[in-house]
């Protein structure tokens, strides 16, 4: 009988099997994603806690404060009290060793309830109480407007400089016959992976001698002399633009500079957008340069260095640190959600074609 059954039973149809695999793989991915993003939830939850919640035994994982109840002008702590086999939240009014008197916050007119047992063995009752003002506290303590202003200025100016100069250089590499172009191009690409430390000390010394250390200049000026990765990306793009238009313009007597601004630049907008975004976030993230060149000059700090200094001073205020880390994260995240397509395509071009 069972032999027969086995023979008769058909394997699951392909579509059903595929559906099952899809569900399994998708839930596995979801599991990984949840683990991956847990720190962000932790940061959010922690940022909303009170200072005291961290050290209290029995505190819940979510932002909460110990519940209290106002009774006859005084506030009393609320405990979880087992009464007749169920847990009730009652306010402790009169403390006693063997028995204590409670009041039911939902039913205060009923008067005091006598409870037999040691109140010290009871657990406090917590209520959900997010401290949204931690964000404004962090915002003010760390002086976010100034840090953000500095960062936006730094990222904006260097992005403009690095993208414009890189586009010029990229045009040169893409369209002109230049002796030893290949060697020059390899040299340019090699600067991308050159460890920055090896050029740092003489550069620092020169900037120190001309009085630029402590200002933004050492961070901004070099950006105007092109940037390896940007040049590479824009060059790839310009090479894909058909030459017909620039040749037509050349016949009409336009010089290369004119061609660059009126033909090449407008057509390279997709590449320029991607590169601008990259550079902007690179600068937003930059830490080592500002740390060294702005040392001891807190009014000029960008957000990264400011946040580090804040972490050092307020290392005990876990909630404020998480709040400030989240504020720092939120602006890049918002921009990312709007521009993610451009962003990811750019990553692919730089990463795969190199």
């Amino acid at each position, binding site marked *: 009988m069972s032999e027969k059954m086995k023979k008769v039973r058909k394997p699951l149809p392909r579509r059903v099997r595929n559906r099952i695999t899809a569900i399994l793989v998708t839930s596995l991915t979801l599991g990984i*994603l949840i683990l991956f993003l847990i720190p962000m939830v932790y940061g959010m939850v922690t940022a909303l806690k009170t200072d005291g919640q961290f050290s209290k035994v029995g505190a819940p994982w979510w932002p909460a404060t110990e519940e209290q109840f106002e009774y006859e002008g005084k506030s009393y702590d609320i405990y979880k009290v087992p009464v007749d086999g169920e847990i009730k939240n009652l306010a402790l009014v009169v403390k006693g060793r063997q028995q204590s008197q409670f009041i039911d916050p939902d039913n205060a007119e009923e008067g005091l309830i006598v409870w037999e047992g040691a109140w010290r063995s009871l657990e406090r009752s917590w209520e959900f109480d997010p401290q949204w003002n931690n964000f404004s506290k962090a915002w003010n303590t760390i002086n976010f407007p100034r840090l953000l202003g500095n960062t936006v200025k730094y990222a904006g100016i260097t992005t403009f400089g690095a993208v414009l100069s890189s586009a010029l250089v990229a045009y040169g590499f893409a369209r002109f016959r230049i002796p030893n172009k290949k060697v020059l191009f390899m040299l340019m690409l090699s600067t991308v992976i050159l460890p920055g430390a090896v050029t740092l000390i003489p550069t620092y010394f020169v900037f120190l001698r001309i009085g630029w250390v402590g200002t933004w200049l050492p961070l901004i000026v070099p950006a105007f002399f092109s940037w390896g990765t940007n040049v590479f990306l824009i060059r790839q793009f310009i090479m894909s633009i058909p030459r017909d238009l620039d040749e037509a313009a050349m016949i009409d007597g336009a010089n290369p500079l004119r061609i660059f601004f009126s033909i090449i630049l407008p057509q390279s907008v997709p590449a320029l957008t991607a590169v601008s975004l990259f550079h902007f976030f690179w600068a937003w993230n930059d830490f080592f340069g500002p740390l060294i060149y702005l040392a001891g000059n807190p009014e000029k700090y960008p957000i990264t260095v400011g946040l580090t200094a804040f972490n050092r001073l307020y290392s005990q205020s876990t909630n404020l640190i998480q709040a400030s880390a989240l504020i720092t994260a939120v602006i890049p995240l918002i921009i990312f959600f709007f521009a993610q397509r451009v962003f990811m395509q750019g990553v692919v071009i730089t990463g795969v074609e190199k």
Partner: protein
Amino acid sequence: MNGIALRRAVKPKKVTSRILRNEAKWGFLFLSPWIIGFLAFYFLPMLASFGFSLLNFNPAVPDEATFIGFQNWQRALSVDKEVFLSFMRTMRFAAISLPIGLGFALLLSIILNSKNVIGKTLYRTLFYMPSMIPVVATVLIWNGVLNEQTGWINVLIQSVTGIQAVGTEGLRWLADPKLVYYAYTMFGLWGVGNAMIIFLAGLQGVPTEMYEAAEIDGASWLQRLFSITFPMITPVIFYQLVLGVIGVLQYFLAPFVLNQGTGAPEGMTRFYMVYFYKQSFTFFNMGYGATLAWLMFIFALIVTILLFGSAKYWVYYASEER
């Protein structure tokens, strides 16, 4: 390219050379920002850096700089043990963080490339998202979540496995020398986005006919993975590995943010770059700092050359086969 070659052949020689010269002139004009920048911010500083390595030099008292020959180099290579130690720490950290980091990126890209995942675009966005968070903020968030007492990682491990993870007897991610590199590796996973996207693009570039042919021959999913997928994307893995090694040599931010370069716990996080920073910008031993920087450069060069040399044994380039 063909067009250029053709034009060159057709045009008379004299005119060509004049046109070429004019073209080169304009070309160099456009390259000039890079050429000036290269000389001013790469080439000359590199040479000068070598010059500095021969000096005993403190920028606060530049006039007292003295030429000491190769004493800095001797000190770095044979006297100052911390140079070698910090370098070995960096390498040990690399040996942990690079395989885990690249493996995770590869795993995600394989999942996201599979036809079996519903909602791929959303997953891709969400896995990429933390890469956008400034690394300082990432480090601080993870510093909290890995806290031995209140961090969720330990609470989660304890409640799932029952192992004592919370508290001073538990998993002290950032205070235990055996765990700290894994903790740092975990922060790094939040930066997985770029590698993931690049791997994904590599996977999408693998011709589907290969998979179809293998499937007809009865190859299992695992066989296809090891015999088609991995070999076909070795160029991408190679590129990521080179970038990863160069990056880890300069690993600085996380230890600096968390312990200001003290190396806690037990000096484990005093990586090479941290030591370079301390010598150069805390003690202002810039002659010695320049030496350390040059050593790093030499080492990065050796590693890159070794990696490129090893490439022919394991990296597959489709063009060679043609």
